[in-house]
């Protein structure tokens, strides 16, 4: 009986030791995601609000915690952004969504898929807006509208 329990505790400690070894590997994952999220945030924080002379960061439309990065495979990441529009105005929220998408499409150096959402409970028609800003055909057509394009270009222009 004693031998069996001795064997059991030996096995248990071995399992713990092995999982202890795998800890550093597991810890690497969140750090890479954090780095990637920061890369994304650095690109979006300087985007200007379409109406006010401030950045999305200054207006708290985006924050570090609003960016989530997940690994799809070794070379590709899923980037999820949840932004908080300043006013419940539909077209403005859509416009901000458009700016976020265009900036990242152009400037994010790593291979990614992008999902943009209005943070829950901040808008009455958030489902409608989320659907539009994640429909790439609608986004492409919007960017071919010269007036819309001009506004977006002004908002994503890198500060001097």
């Amino acid at each position: 009986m004693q031998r069996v329990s001795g064997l059991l505790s030996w096995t248990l400690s071995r399992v713990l030791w092995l999982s202890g070894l795998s800890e550093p590997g597991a810890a690497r994952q969140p750090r890479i995601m954090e780095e990637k999220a920061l890369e994304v945030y650095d690109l979006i924080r300087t985007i200007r609000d379409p109406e006010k002379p401030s950045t999305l960061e200054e207006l708290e439309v985006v924050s570090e915690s609003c960016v989530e990065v997940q690994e799809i495979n070794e070379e590709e990441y899923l980037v999820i952004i949840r932004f908080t529009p300043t006013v419940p105005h539909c077209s403005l929220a859509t416009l901000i969504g458009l700016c976020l998408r265009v900036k990242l499409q152009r400037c994010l150096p790593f291979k990614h898929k992008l999902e943009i959402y209005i943070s829950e409970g901040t808008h009455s028609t958030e489902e409608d807006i989320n659907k539009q800003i994640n429909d790439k055909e609608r986004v492409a057509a919007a960017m071919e509208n010269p007036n819309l394009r001009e506004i977006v270009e002004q908002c994503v222009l890198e500060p001097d």
Partner: protein
Amino acid sequence: MKDSLVLLGRVPAHPDSRCWFLAWNPAGTLLASCGGDRRIRIWGTEGDSWICKSVISEGHQRTVRKVAWSPCGNYLASASFDATTCIWKKNQDDFECVTTLEGHENEVKSVAWAPSGNLLATCSRDKSVWVWEVDEEDEYECVSVLNSHTQDVKHVVWHPSQELLASASYDDTVKLYREEEDDWVCCATLEGHESTVWSLAFDPSGQRLASCSDDRTVRIWRQYLPGNEQGVACSGSDPSWKCVCTLSGFHSRTIYDIAWCQLTGALATACGDDAIRVFEEDPNSDPQQPTFSLTAHLHQAHSQDVNCVAWNPKEPGLLASCSDDGEVAFWKYQRPEGL
């Protein structure tokens, strides 16, 4: 399963842009591609490789979203974000614009020719589907404006042998239309998808319709005629359509296109996860509850979203695909052994 789809070649069809759609001509000798660069390119084979035989660079002011060949193969229609549809007449390697169809309020998302060659359908973000009639003098006349959908209409496709039209929409539904006493009416609405329906394809018999969606599923719908054996209720003389199969758990992102091979019955999908998949119906499948198996799954078929897949109408197993990366790829599909 990787070997069931083999790459034959790639061409940079719309460099620095995205390629949105492809269409084989009825003879299967030419492939038309269109894209965000506002151009249409016609590809043909020269020995073992694919070369660009013609470029249509004038005609549209914005993205060309879809192209479609007429059943006779002499005309090509192009649908554009500039709200127009152009009809091009083929004269060897030259294409001449014979007319520009106007009327939609904003982006035209799709165009399709009926098998008779006398009818054309277009659809738009303006939520409408238009039916056009063509006469012997190449004159086009709009004969119906259908406002059944409540949102952006993404795709239209005709039944392979009947004058039955199907449309797919951002309102998450599929609608069917037919002619009734000199006017076109919506005769069925297929509900079930939980997000935008991007594309549609009829099976070779026309008895089934496949739809693909942003909800990452493919649905197979079957037509039931009035008085059918299975006891599926029909309203009046209109057939009913019932969803008989849902393929879920296979695609990890939006499915942009679906193509049903008219020669072999194989079903191909174009997905936003950069992959191409092929499904085949199981041999002893119950027609009222068919089952499909995944017979090919090619990861990284392209380096970005796959927007379109198109089976060659004459050569079984020859598949073309295109992507946001601007490339067109050609594949040979072979049904795996032991299935």
